[in-house]
């Protein structure tokens, strides 16, 4: 009997040993993450979340390369030459609603919006004596700017989109928010830009949103809305702020980093790499040559009367007698430091040129156009005809802003897409709402899809 008792003691001891420390076993803490409640609570975490919003903005799926790529592939600047036919579908202007890039870009833009919404929703209530009012306003200003930029990019590519303005708490957040019209979308962009303008200080870092960046985006928004006077007003604010200048040679703005040219440039480094170059460079340069400059733009860029020093964006190599031409605006494949040029001064000159021409101010318009030409080592254009001058602006935008994702939207807003690109089906001027969204979002039915998809 005694022996049996001893044995039970052994058993009890074994159980005890094995069960001690159970709490540790069942309640491990995540090491890579914090809970949502801890995310934005003080100055440091708010600043971290703001940097997180920029990080989402610079993602491969947005400004890293995919958003501009979808635009330049859709236009006539770039031809697809790789193996991913979800990019080919943009080149062919035949984009099925289940195209994976459509989905990834759409989703990524809303990631920027959600982080911005969190900042806009939570930063005003932060109680932290280290957070000065100026700092609080700057964080909020940047968040409003990032949200404005996001909705602007959604609007010009897809038309009106669901306008979510509150942070997502659970999967039901945003329920009931249907597609807005494009006009409502742009109104939201403007409202956010107004907020940002009131909160943001003048430019001190070209890698971050500033008052000048707000003006520059406003100028672009008004241009898209054909509000020529406002477009001129805001581009003038940018140009005369003196915060940016056209750098020489042309290639300096993309071979350098955060040059004087930039009003807002997203920066990358070795540990936070941009992979844009990978899609442009041929395999002999370490890329996958997924796409290449089109024959048309090669001709324009190499034309000494049109491209000037901007021909530098073309690289070339000859193997076995065959020339391969590639784009090298993004070429820092070793370091991954190619920038994303969100807003830069040359565009502001061209916005003002167009706005002034549209207001029948031929001389002032041409003068802005020639500022840009002069930097590209071209002689000034002298034109007597407004419409010819407008076409000159169109061509100038093609070569000056090549591979930056402007031309597709430019040709659509000017109504020239059909003529220039030969796309007769107007439905193709908007991307399809991702099919996955029609399925996943109870507020989007098949009837909410853009026509033709």
């Amino acid at each position, binding site marked *: 009997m005694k022996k*049996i008792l001893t044995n039970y003691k052994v058993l009890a001891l*074994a159980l005890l*040993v*094995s*069960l001690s420390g*159970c709490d540790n*076993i*069942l309640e*491990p803490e*995540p*090491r*890579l*993450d*914090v*809970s*949502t*409640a801890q*995310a934005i609570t003080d100055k440091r975490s708010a*600043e*971290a*979340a*703001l*940097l*997180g*919003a*920029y*990080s989402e903005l*610079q993602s491969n799926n947005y400004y890293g390369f995919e958003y501009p790529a979808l635009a330049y592939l859709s236009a006539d600047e770039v031809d697809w*030459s*790789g*193996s991913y*036919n979800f990019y*080919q579908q943009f080149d062919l202007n035949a984009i099925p*609603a289940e195209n*994976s890039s459509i989905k990834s870009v*759409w989703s990524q833009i*809303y990631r920027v*919006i*959600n982080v911005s*919404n969190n900042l806009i929703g939570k930063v005003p209530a932060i109680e932290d004596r280290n957070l000065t009012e100026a700092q609080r306003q700057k964080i909020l200003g940047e968040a409003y700017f990032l949200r404005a930029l996001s909705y602007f990019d959604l609007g010009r590519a897809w038309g009106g989109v669901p306008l*979510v303005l509150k942070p*997502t708490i659970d*999967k039901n957040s*945003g329920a009931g928010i249907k597609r807005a019209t494009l006009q409502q979308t742009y109104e939201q962009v403007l409202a956010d830009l107004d907020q940002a303008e009131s909160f943001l200080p003048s430019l001190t870092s070209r*890698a971050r949103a500033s008052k000048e960046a707000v003006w520059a985006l406003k100028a672009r928004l008004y241009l898209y809305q054909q509000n020529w006077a406002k477009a001129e007003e805001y581009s003038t604010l940018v140009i005369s702020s003196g915060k940016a200048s056209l750098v020489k040679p042309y290639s300096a703005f993309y071979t350098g980093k955060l040059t004087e040219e930039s009003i807002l440039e997203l920066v990358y480094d*070795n540990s936070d790499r941009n992979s844009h170059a990978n899609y442009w460079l041929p*395999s*002999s*340069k370490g890329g*996958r*040559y997924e796409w290449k400059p089109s024959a048309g733009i090669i001709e324009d860029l190499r034309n000494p009367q049109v491209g000037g020093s901007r021909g530098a964006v073309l690289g070339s190599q000859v*193997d*076995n007698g065959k020339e391969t031409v590639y784009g090298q605006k993004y070429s820092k494949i*070793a*370091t991954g430091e190619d920038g994303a040029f969100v807003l830069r001064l040359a565009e502001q000159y061209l916005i003002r040129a167009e706005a002034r021409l549209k207001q029948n101010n031929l001389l002032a318009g041409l003068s802005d156009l020639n500022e840009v030409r002069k930097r590209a080592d071209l002689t000034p254009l002298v034109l007597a005809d407004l419409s010819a001058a407008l076409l000159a602006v169109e061509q100038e935008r093609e070569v000056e802003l090549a591979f930056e994702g402007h031309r597709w939207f430019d040709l659509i807003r000017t109504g020239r897409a059909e003529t220039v690109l030969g796309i007769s089906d107007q439905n193709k001027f908007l991307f399809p709402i991702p099919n996955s969204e029609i*399925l*996943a*979002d109870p507020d*989007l039915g098949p009837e909410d899809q853009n026509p033709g*998809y």
Partner: protein
Amino acid sequence: MQTYTISKLVRLLFSLGLLLAFSGSALAQSALTQGTVKDAKTGEPLIGARVQIKGTDKGTVTGVDGSFNLPVENGQTLIISSLGYTLREVKADGQPITIALQEDTKALEEVVVVGYGTQSQKAVSSAVTSVNPQELKGIPAPSPDQLLQGKASGVQIAAASGTPGGGIFVRIRGNTSINASNEPLYVVDGVFINNQSLSGLSLGGQTTNPLADLNPADIESIEILKDANATAIYGARGANGVVLITTKRGKTNAGTRINFQTYFGVAEAPKIYETVNAQQEAELINETHLNDGGSLSTLPFRPRSEGGLGLPEEQTTYSRIPDVFQTATTQSYDLSASGGGESNRFFLGGGYFKQEGIVKPAEFERFSGRFNYDHLVNKRLTIGTSTSISYSKRNQSRNDDSAQGVINSALYVPTYLPVFNEDGSYARHSIFDNHLALIENLNIQGESSRLISNLYGEYEILDGLTLKSNWSIDYNAYADKVYNNTQISVGLPAGNASRSESKLVTLINEQLLTYNKRFGNDHFLNVILGNTVQQTKYNFLSLTGRNFPSDNFQEIASSSLQTASTNSSQNGLISFFSRAGYTFKDRYSIDGSVRADASSRFGASNRWGVFPSLGASWIISEEAFARDLPFDLIKLRANIGVTGNQNGINDFASLGLWRAGRNYEGLPGISHQQLANPDLKWETTRQWNIGLDLGLLQNRLRVEANYYNKYTKDLLLEVPVAAKTGFSSVFENLGEISNKGVELNISTTNIEREDLTWTTSLNIARNVNKIEKLPIPINQHSRDWVRMEEGGSVYDFWVYKQLYVDPQTGDAVYDDVDQNGSITVADRQIVANASPDFFGGLNNTVRYKNFDLGALIYGEYGNEILNLNRYFMEHGGTRNGSISYLPGQLNRWQQPGDVTNMPRLTKKGNNYTLPSSRFIEDGSFLRLRSVTLGYTVPSAALSKYKISSLRVYVSGTNLWTLTNYSGLDPEVNVAGNNQNVRGIDHAVVPQPRSFQAGLNVSF
């Protein structure tokens, strides 16, 4: 069904006793007859078999090598007997004789290894398949799971590719989950082991198989637990079945036996890719140009004098594909010692295995060691260990879905483009690397270090009541080492290197009380009660270096741009479990089990899951009324149970999280990562199984049939949410999947004579998988080739269905499902499925005198394959100049009236841009998986060399395949890293055809 016999030990002890009893009298005799006694099935010598002269009390017992010497007069009859074997009589004629004894299956108290113990074969109500380790020989595969293919009904096993050490697909009774794991639980000598690849590399979807860390030569038996009554004891991890691996142990009082086995093999690709030649390719490119309205003056292949690339017939064809294939060798060596004294037994083994891939430069190499030891401290206390260590090294390469893949770089590049530049350097074209540069410069190493060890103490508290305490570890460290020099495109412009180390350590403590007791003659009770505490920690470290001074430097320290990162995570599981079985009159049995698991992965409200099961069996043939029936065995089994699943989801899936590392400007940033779901809980699978076991003709015909019905609810599903929330999905318990199926095993002894036996076993299974509930469809793989939707099944292909090619226009006509006149995403439909309707294996074994011949045929029927090689290489002109063509493209429509399913060449329209049903093919196959011919050298001829047994053999694998599939191999899967994708072929290394020669010798 091979079973594990407790009585072997008893038999041995008994026989050794006899040996001692008889040895005195045997020595006194003078004229000796020599002989050997062996097991008829395995050919292994039988130790301690009794040899007696009929009608006398004279006799002896066999020694350690199965031999005996006995003075016999010619004409006298010898009676040879051994416990557990059928007695035999042989007439002596003065010559040395070899006697093979058949196992007496009826006489044995057969036991089956089940979770946390064994059960009497008679009492088992579950579907458990045991695989005879003898049957695992002859196939040169590095990992034990791959060897099970075709051996167990209802268990579908397929290698993802022919790359050695690569991922293996294993499904027991179908897929139960979408986002949680579908892999069975692997338990080696009581230790739950990791079977998830730890490699952090993306190599085109290829994975590595952690089970390749185990040496198949160490394995004594493998049991596959399939139904809920067998797996409910594993609770939250039992839903996908359990594979129990038991390794070899020594025997007490058995002396020391040395065993050496080795084989050498050569392998090759049974078939390699073919493409069009340069002239054909040029003609196709020209035709596209003209079809798309291009003018003759700008034809790409026009005379060089006119600025073209030269006429098609002037093109040179550059061959690349044969360069990447090689005749690959395999070598395997295993040396072991096993045995034991009165109070201990041991098994000590070491192995070396090396296998080259048939596509350069892949290679797998493993060093392994095992030490299993048991020590009987006293009558009641036993302590011991099962420990294995291994170090595996992989030389890897990209393949499958990767533009930098070795096969891709040889297969896709247009054939008219040269391999070398004029200056002799490697030429690269379009997105592809130079295949020779890859083969010579690829440097992707994977190193796995593994320790699986268990220490135990077992104490018999009372007769029949024992307490066992186990302390176990699975230590799995995996290192990826990559160096890309500037000869290959990923290394441009100045070289880069990366190193990552993943460490997954599982610690387990387990207490187990076992009570076995027979009351009187009619009542047998078996009870176990236990608990386990398990903790798994994951640590990850990675380093990268870029910009090297030259290709001569490879270490990260030599680079100028360096980054580093670490990550860690952990999870825990606390469990209590019990099983009780009761057998009455050896014919009525009921058993049941229950397990309660608490998991750290779920919130406090749903932390505990309880998983019960109940089963019953009835041996009808023992009943009086059945005695006259022509059956040796009729047994009915039925059971039902509930199991769970929590594997495969991340450790913190229920929490709302923000993640750091979302940096900008070199400053630390955070952004949202995951939506919270505090209600997250287990997936639960309810399964019932009914089975019938029959034995006829003195059990020479045995039939085992099972019907099962599995229903899984509360799937751990990554449910897509509206992207406007900023999130893409949330983990929820939504969705239901069912699997219903039948399994049939028939084994027959066709011929059973003294020197000729022939046995056959056939297994065949059918599983019907259905997604019963799914809130929204979920698409998989690039271009959404695969879709899961309610009413469908896993592995459905979702495409535009091509009806025909219009003979007038040459354009593909697709099924306009919504009949709106245009082909949009609404017209995509499910047209095929990658799962087989039936699959199974046929195993034949013939023994003639000392020869043995085994053949395994494996087949799958009704599975479809998406041939992405054709999708990319019958591109109809859309990839002209960057990707070549397969010969199938030559069947394209050319002029009105042509009837073909290959549309007109064009870059425009949707002839070649849509994911079309055209690329889906029947993947059914029947394959001679292995053939082995062996010869066991008679022991009489060996005894003077102190060799107790010697077998030599030759074998071949995949010698013959019957299939209509047009690709290289029907056994393919490009996306081994995505469990929801199957049956897609895309530059996958085919299963090799190989020949081996080997020997197995014991001293």
